[in-house]
């Protein structure tokens, strides 16, 4: 940079003095007042007292405030020389410019301005290495014309530091009231020594200020908030970061202890400024470490920070205040909390997975899910809902929901069942959402301000949802949604697993039950393939047919079919192949021992997994008993019907014939009733033996029981056929009635002997029946032949080859029957 070049703005404080090319128009000497001329000027007498006083003051000032020394020096020069302006010029660091750090008098406003080194009064003085007086120097240094008031005369004295000229001290007159003289020169030369010393002090102070400035720059450059206070806590300095940190401009002198708006402890409780760590550091005169705090800015934003308050001391060791650095750890804390939350989420997920693994019922699964949802998503309430059989979304598990709420929202589903890939739906603020008003009211009434719907997919299809409910609006982050989706997936798998297990258990249980039923069944339950080969054989089959499973499994089932029925099997298989069943088909089968058995068959086709008929299952029910019972029942029914009809006919005959004769109605009535009673007794006996017959011994004894003590009865047990029994009772009734009316039972001494026996004659059985009266009144043969006679003679005669022998001997009536047993009985017993 040369002086001849164009405009050159100074970087320092102050104005610019551009050097114009035409400045070199005048000669240097023309502006300098020569030393000769100076000495010829009248000079005022020296005022040593004033001078000493001024110098003493200067000396004091230098000791007390080195940073003001230059100004004092200028003021002293002004005063002692009675100038109108005075000042100091110093060379700047570049050495190319003088600047004016201190000016007193009328030019005081120009402090900070300067002149070029190599073209100006100060530079000339340094070049000449001697004090000089300039008169109207602006004639040469034209830029000085801008400096007002007008420079009439200037006296400049150089001063030195470390042998180097570093600047000038000068006084200026602005008008013609006086001119500088030798005395001024003398004073100024003396002051130049002071100036040198002052300069050293100034330099030192500048260095300090420079250092201070550098320090200030460093502190300002720090990203951490830094501020300092005095011992009373008043803030004395702060850096830019501190203002950003506080969110406000700290007020020096009024802010105490802290530059911030509001402070809080980490737990959120308010921290009064005079209790903050900085205050403690100052009051207790020690550094405070290890504390954390929260700062709240005026705009409401908050930061977490760690303060590092440290007391400051001067060289004497006295505390002058403290400095505090506040490190913003908000991001760090956020990261820590995120990590912690991740860890918690992982823990929650792990705990959830573990519980799911151990769950054995759907209720276990739901409980685990509700816990995980609340833990992982930080909601107080949650619920799990599934579609029921009708396709309605129903609550299956919940925490913290009222019955009213559940009833009101049950059934509501944000997705249809067919939707392929349902996505979670988050409502961060229920009040602001576009839910229907009625639903919104219900939700808000339950105290729910935010909610999320997370779909549950089971076996590829939407099966339901789980819900997270928050009491305050909640912004859902992607991480949360991902977590919820993970939980939903796990839940879906678990529901699937439990359902499969339940299904499997039910199937197993059903299988076991079925197997048990088959094994314990009395019926034969047999399965065969389509070729008629036995594939299973239960206990019932073993019992009925006599074959063990080992003997029958793998063998053809035709072994059980009697030869004449062998065509049944192909017919059955034909129908089975078509998918038809055979229901309660009655037929005959053959046991292992060859015996035949009446059975009822029920055969059903058995299908394999693809629905094709693979074989048949057969239930063989032993119906022999039933058949026998049926036969017996039929026989019995037929017999009853027969007997009933017969009985009516017999009674008709008895009544009709009893009244046929000529006896009185009274007698006839008595006879009829007696005969009916006898028939009734026999009827009872016949019923007891299922109509197969009645024992002759019973018939006789019962009929003769009114006459017990006067009758002997001897004869073996003999089962008479029904008809024969009826007629025998009527015959015995007649005999007894006659004996009671006219014969042996009509007086007090008569007796009756009844006996019968069976014997063999000509290879067949014969019955001999004998009724013998004795001791009765004289016998008179009856004249009339009524029904009784008809019975005794004709009816009974039908059962015997020859008619009964009836003797009316004087001793008593004899009635004897001899005849083949065949007509009377089916009993082929031994002869008695």
């Amino acid at each position, binding site marked *: 940079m040369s002086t001849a070049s164009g405009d050159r703005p100074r970087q320092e404080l102050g104005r610019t003095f551009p050097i114009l090319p035409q400045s070199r128009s005048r000669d240097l000497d023309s502006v300098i007042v020569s030393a000769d001329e100076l000495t010829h000027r009248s000079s005022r007498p020296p005022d040593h007292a004033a001078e000493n006083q001024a110098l003493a003051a200067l000396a004091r000032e230098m000791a007390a405030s080195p940073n003001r020394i230059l100004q004092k020096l200028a003021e002293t020069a002004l005063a002692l020389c009675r100038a109108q302006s005075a000042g100091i010029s110093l060379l700047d660091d570049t050495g190319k410019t003088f600047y004016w750090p201190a000016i007193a008098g009328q030019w005081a406003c120009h402090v900070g301005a300067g002149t070029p080194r190599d073209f100006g009064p100060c530079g000339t003085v340094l070049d000449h290495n001697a004090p000089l007086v300039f008169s109207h120097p602006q004639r040469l240094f034209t830029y000085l014309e801008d400096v007002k008031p007008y420079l009439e005369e200037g006296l400049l004295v150089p001063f030195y530091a470390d042998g180097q000229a570093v600047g000038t001290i000068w006084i200026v007159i602005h008008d013609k009231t006086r001119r500088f003289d030798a005395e001024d020169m003398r004073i100024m030369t003396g002051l130049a020594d002071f100036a040198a010393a002052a300069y050293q002090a100034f330099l030192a102070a500048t260095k300090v200020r420079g250092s201070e400035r550098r320090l200030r720059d460093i502190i300002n450059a720090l990203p951490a908030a830094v501020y300092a206070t005095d011992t009373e806590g008043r803030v004395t300095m702060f850096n830019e970061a501190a203002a950003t940190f506080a969110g406000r401009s700290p007020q020096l002198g009024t802010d105490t202890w802290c530059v911030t708006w509001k402070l809080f402890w980490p737990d959120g409780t308010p921290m009064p400024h005079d209790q903050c760590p900085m205050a403690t550091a100052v009051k207790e005169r020690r550094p405070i470490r290890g504390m954390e705090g929260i700062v709240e800015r005026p705009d409401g934003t908050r930061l977490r920070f760690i303060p590092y308050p440290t007391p400051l001391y001067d060289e004497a060791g006295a505390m002058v205040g403290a400095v505090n650095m506040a490190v913003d750890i908000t991001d760090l804390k956020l990261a820590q909390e995120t990590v912690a939350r991740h860890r918690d989420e992982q823990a929650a997920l792990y705990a959830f997975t573990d519980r799911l693994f151990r769950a054995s019922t759907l209720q276990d699964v739901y409980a685990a899910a509700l816990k995980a949802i609340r833990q992982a998503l930080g909601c107080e309430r949650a619920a799990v809902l599934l579609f029921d059989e009708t396709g309605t979304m129903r609550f299956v598990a919940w925490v913290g929901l009222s019955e009213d709420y559940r009833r009101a929202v049950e059934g509501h589903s944000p997705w249809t069942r067919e939707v392929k890939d349902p996505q979670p739906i988050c409502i961060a603020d229920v009040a602001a959402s576009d839910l229907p008003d009625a639903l919104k009211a219900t939700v808000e009434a339950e105290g729910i301000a935010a909610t999320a719907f997370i779909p549950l997919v089971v076996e590829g299809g939407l099966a339901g949802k789980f819900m997270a409910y928050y009491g305050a609006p909640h912004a859902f982050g992607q991480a949360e949604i991902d977590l919820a989706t993970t939980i939903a997936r796990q839940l879906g798998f678990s529901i699937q697993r439990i359902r499969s297990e339940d299904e499997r258990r039910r199937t197993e249980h059903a299988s076991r039950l079925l197997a048990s039923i088959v094994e314990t069944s009395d019926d034969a339950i047999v399965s065969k393939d389509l070729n008629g080969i036995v594939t299973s054989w239960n206990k019932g089959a073993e019992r009925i047919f006599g074959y063990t499973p080992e003997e029958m499994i793998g063998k053809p089932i035709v072994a059980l079919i009697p030869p004449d029925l062998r065509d049944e099997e192909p017919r059955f298989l034909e129908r089975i192949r078509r998918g038809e069943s055979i229901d309660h088909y009655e037929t005959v089968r053959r046991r292992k021992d060859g015996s035949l058995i009446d059975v009822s068959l029920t055969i059903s086709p058995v299908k394999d997994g693809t629905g094709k008929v693979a074989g048949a299952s057969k239930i063989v029910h032993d119906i022999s008993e039933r058949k026998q019972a049926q036969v017996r029942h039929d026989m019995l029914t*037929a017999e009853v*019907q*027969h*007997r*009933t*009809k*017969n009985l*009516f*006919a*017999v009674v*008709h*005959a*008895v009544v*009709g*014939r009893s009244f*046929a004769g000529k006896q009185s109605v009274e007698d006839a009535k008595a006879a009829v009733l007696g005969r009916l009673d006898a028939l009734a007794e026999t009827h009872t006996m016949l019923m007891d033996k299922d109509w197969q017959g009645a024992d002759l011994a019973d018939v006789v004894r019962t009929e003769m029981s009114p006459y017990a003590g006067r009758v002997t009865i001897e004869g073996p047990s003999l089962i008479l056929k029904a*008809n024969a029994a*009826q*007629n025998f009772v*009527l015959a015995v009734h007649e005999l007894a009635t006659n004996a009671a009316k006219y014969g042996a039972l009509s007086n007090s001494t008569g007796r009756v002997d009844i006996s019968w026996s069976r014997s063999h004659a000509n290879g067949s059985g014969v019955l001999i029946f004998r009724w013998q009266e004795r001791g009765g009144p004289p016998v008179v043969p009856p004249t009339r032949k009524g029904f009784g006679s*008809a*019975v005794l003679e*004709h*009816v009974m005669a*039908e*059962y015997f080859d020859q008619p009964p022998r009836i003797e009316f001997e004087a001793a008593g009536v004899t009635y004897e029957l001899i005849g083949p047993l065949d007509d009377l009985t089916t009993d082929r017993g031994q002869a008695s």
Partner: protein
Amino acid sequence: MRVPNGVLAGRSILIVEDEPLIALDIHAAFSAAGASIVAALDSREALRLTALPDLSAAVVDIGLGAEDCCRVCKRLSDNGVPFVFYTGEARTEVLRQWPNAPVLTKLAGTKRVVEVVAGVLR
């Protein structure tokens, strides 16, 4: 329908009935109607009696046994003798063979039997 005495006067009726008391009763009823009676109480006797030349009609009890009964009925039918079944049991295999023969159960009563026989002979 009251049968006046002697409605079967001059008629000869064969009664085939194995229960003597009932045979007695039927006998009495037909006698009261003026008929003469022959009675068989077993199938052997019945077959023999079917050969009688002047039989007007027969009352047959199926209780003899299906085979025997059929044989008796066949004989009667061959001889042109109308008959009436009077029975306590319904043996359809027998009844089916003679669908034109009236059937009376033993609950009908002997009076009814006489009426029916009289009707047949009119």
